C-alpha cells in the first residue's frame, strides 16, 4: 500500500515537521491570548503582516533574524490595536478580530503594491537554511525529520516548552490563566487584568506574526497574495483541539501537518489520478472542522474567554 511507503520515508516526516512549524508558532500565540480570556480572530491577518514584513525587511537588506524581529514587532503592533479595543474598551472580540484581520492583510497588500508596483512575480530572498544537529540527525527516520530543519523550526519546538513552563510554573503564567478563568481573582490580588490581558494579546500576536514570517523566510522565499490561506483559522481550531494546553495543541499541529503532507504525496499516487486534486486540498479544512467537533464535548474552555472585564464590576 502506498500510504505505508509514504509513512516510512524521512522526507515525508521532514515535510510534516516543516508544515507544522508555522502552525505551532501561531497556535501558541492564539493559545496565550485565549488563556488570558481574549479570542484573537486577528490571527489570519497578523500572519499575513508577519509574512510580508519579515520578508520585506530581509529583501531590503536586513539579516534574517532581524527580519524575524521586524515581523514580530509588526504583529505586536496589531496585537496592541486588538488588545486596546477589546480589553479596556471591551468591544466585541469577534468584530474587532475580523477587523484586525482585514486591516492587517490590507496593510500588507497595500505596502507590497506600493513598494513593488510593477512586478509580476515577487522577488526571492535567501531563506533560512536547514541546520543539521550533529549526532541526533543520524538517527534513522527521526533524525532527518526532526534534526535537519531550519533554525526557525527548532525555535518553534523550543517555544512549546517555554510556553508550557511559563504557563504552569511561573507567577506570570498563574496570573495569565487566572485572567482567563476569573479576572476578579486577579484584580482581588492586586494585579491589573487589563495589563495582563493586553500583554498576552500583544505577545501572542507577535508569535502569530513569526508563524507568518516562517512562510516567507523558511518555507518559501517570497511573498504571495493569499499565502496564509486560512492557516490562522486552522490554528484557532488547533487551540480547541489541544484543549488550551500548549503540548497537546502542538501535537495537534504536528498531526495535522502530517495529514497535510500525506495528501500532497497521495496526489502523486494512482489515487491522485482518480480523485480531483481539490478534494486533497480540502483535507486540512475538513480535518479542522472534524477536530472541533471531536473536542467540543470535553474541551475545557477558559471560563472568561470573550467576557470583557470592567474594573470594579463583579
Amino acid at each position: 500500500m502506498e500510504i505505508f511507503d509514504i509513512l516510512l520515508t524521512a522526507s515525508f516526516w521532514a515535510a510534516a515537521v516543516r508544515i507544522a512549524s508555522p502552525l505551532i508558532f501561531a497556535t501558541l500565540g492564539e493559545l496565550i491570548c485565549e488563556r488570558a480570556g481574549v479570542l484573537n480572530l486577528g490571527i489570519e491577518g497578523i500572519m499575513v503582516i508577519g509574512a510580508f514584513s519579515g520578508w520585506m525587511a530581509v529583501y531590503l537588506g536586513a539579516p534574517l533574524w532581524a527580519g524575524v524581529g521586524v515581523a514580530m514587532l509588526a504583529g505586536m503592533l496589531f496585537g496592541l490595536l486588538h488588545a486596546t479595543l477589546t480589553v479596556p474598551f471591551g468591544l466585541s472580540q469577534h468584530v474587532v478580530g475580523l477587523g484586525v484581520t482585514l486591516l492587517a492583510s490590507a496593510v500588507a497588500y497595500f505596502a507590497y503594491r506600493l513598494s513593488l508596483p510593477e512586478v509580476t512575480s515577487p522577488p526571492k530572498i535567501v531563506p533560512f537554511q536547514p541546520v543539521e544537529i550533529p549526532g541526533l540527525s543520524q538517527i534513522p527516520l527521526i533524525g532527518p525529520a526532526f534534526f535537519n530543519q531550519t533554525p526557525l523550526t527548532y525555535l518553534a519546538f523550543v517555544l512549546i516548552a517555554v510556553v508550557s513552563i511559563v504557563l504552569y510554573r511561573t507567577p506570570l503564567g498563574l496570573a495569565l490563566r487566572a485572567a482567563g478563568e476569573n479576572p476578579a481573582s486577579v484584580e482581588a490580588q492586586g494585579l491589573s487584568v487589563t495589563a495582563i490581558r493586553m500583554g498576552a494579546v500583544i505577545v501572542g500576536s507577535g508569535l502569530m506574526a513569526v508563524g507568518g514570517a516562517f512562510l516567507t523566510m523558511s518555507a518559501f522565499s517570497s511573498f504571495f497574495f493569499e499565502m496564509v490561506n486560512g492557516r490562522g483559522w486552522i490554528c484557532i481550531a488547533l487551540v480547541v483541539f489541544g484543549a488550551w494546553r500548549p503540548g497537546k495543541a502542538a501535537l495537534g499541529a504536528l498531526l495535522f501537518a502530517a495529514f497535510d503532507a500525506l495528501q500532497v504525496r497521495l496526489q502523486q499516487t494512482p489515487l491522485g489520478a482518480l480523485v480531483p486534486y481539490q478534494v486533497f486540498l480540502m483535507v486540512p479544512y475538513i480535518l479542522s472542522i472534524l477536530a472541533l467537533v471531536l473536542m467540543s464535548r470535553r474541551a475545557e474552555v477558559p471560563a472568561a474567554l470573550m467576557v470583557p472585564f470592567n474594573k470594579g464590576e463583579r
Partner: protein
Amino acid sequence: MAQAEAAEVVLRLDGITKRFGPLVANNAIGFELRKGEVIALLGENGAGKTTLMNILFGHYTADEGTVEVFGQTLPPGHPRAALAAGVGMVHQHFTLADNMTVLENILLGTRPLLSPRLDARAARVKVARLSEDFGLSVHPDARVGTLSVGERQRVEILKALYRDARILILDEPTAVLTPQESSALFGTLRKAVAQGLSVIFISHKLGEVMEISSRVLVLRHGKLVGEVATADTDRQKLAEMMVGAEIAAPRLAEREPGPPLLTLSNVDTPRRGNAPGLSAVNLTLRAGQITGLAGVSGNGQAALAALIGGLERPVQGGMELHGDVPTDWSPRAALAAGIARIPEDRHKTGTVSDFTLTENAVLESYAEAPYSRTGWMDWRAAEDFARKIIETYDVRCPGPSARIRLLSGGNMQKLILGRVLEANPKIILANQPVRGLDIGAVTFVQNRLIAARDDGAAVLLISEDLDEVMALSDVIHVIYEGHLSPAFKRGTMSPAELGQWMAGHGFGGGAHAA
C-alpha cells in the same frame, strides 16, 4: 473585649463619599477600627456596605474622603496598596480561579510577575501552618472547581492570611454557609482576633451581628446612621436603626391546605457541572399552601427550579400535574400548565435588559393572542399589558417603552411578578424572590405571594435565608446534595434543627456519604 477602647487604631475612614450618577452610594462616612476588635457593618441591601468596602480595598475610588491604614493614607484605587498595607478582603462572590489549585490561587499575585519561579514549596509550608493556626483545613492541591462553598471561603481567608493581612474584611460571609459552617467561621475569626487581627464583618443578619461583633455600625441609604456597642443593644433596636422604622413581619393566616397540584415521586435529574442534580426527590405542592425550601446554596435548588420551570426533564421518577402526567416537558409546557416562575437571577434569566418594559412583559406570552396573531406581533396589545402591570404592581419607571435596564432591582422584580401573576397561575415557583431588594420591595413581593396562596395557589419558595423560609412557609423541606428532607410543618422545627438538616444530618446513609 473591654480593653478595645485603649487599643491602637488600625484603620480610619474619613468623609468617604461616592456617587454613581445621581445616586449617592456613600455619604460622608467615617469610622475607626481598633486592633483586635470585630466591628459589624450592618445595613439593608443597597445601603452602601459593599461600595464602602470596595473603596477601602481600592476597587473603587471615592469622590471624597480618605482611608488610613496604620496611620498611612492609602492611595485611592489601588488594591495592591491595600493588600500591602495589610488589608485582606473576602468578597461576597468568591474571587477564585476554578481551573487552578488552592495553592495556585493563594500564590496568585504574591510574587513579582516576572520572577522566574513560584516558590511553591515555601508557600506550602506557610499555608499548612496557617490552616493549623486558624482552623482552616483545605487540601492545597485540590482544584478549586471541585471544592464546596465552605471550602472555597476558607481558601479566600487563607489568601488574605497568607499575605499577612492584619485587617480582614468579610462581605456577607455567611450568606452561603450552613449555621454550623457559620459557627466554624466565627471560631476562625475569634482566633484571628486573639492574634491581634481586626475584622470588619458585613452583614444584614442581626443574629450573627449580635454574636460576633463588639461594635455595630449601621448604614442606611448610604449614610452612617448609628454606631453602638453590641453589648448595649438588641436585635429589635438594630432592626429599627437599619430600616428606619419598625418592620412588620409577614403574617400568615391559618388555612387548610387544598388538593395536591404538583407531585414529584422519586425523581432524579442529571448533574450540571458543579451543581448536583436531584436524587430520589418526593415533593407535593398543595393548593393554598406555601412550601419553603431551605438549604445552603448549590445543594440542588437550581435543579429543582429547573425541573419545575420546564428547563430540565427527570431522568427517573414521575411528575404529576393536576393529577395528570405531562407528556412533554419544556418551559412552554410549564407555562401552559399554569406554573408561574420567578427566576433566581432577574438580570440574567428574568429579563432581557436591552428590551423595553413592553417587550419584557410579553416575554413568556408573546406567541399567544392577543400579542401575536399568525406570526405578526400586536405591539399595541403588548403595551396595554405592560401598562396594566405598571399600574397594578406599582412599577416605578419612565414608561412602557423604557429599557428595563434602567429600573431598580425592586421595580424589575415587580414587573416579573406582574408578568407571571397576571396569568392567574395555579402553581408559583418563587426562586429567591426577594434577594437584593430593599425592605419596601421585600414586603410587597412577600405580601403578593401570601395573597396568591390565600387565593388557592400552590407556592414553592426557594430561599437561602432560613429566617425568610421559616416566616413564610406552611411546610418546609430542606435540600441537601440533591436530596429532599421530609416535610416539616410550620413551627415544628427550630432554626438549629433545620441547620442540622442543612448540614446533611438526618438524610439516609447514601446522602450523607457525599
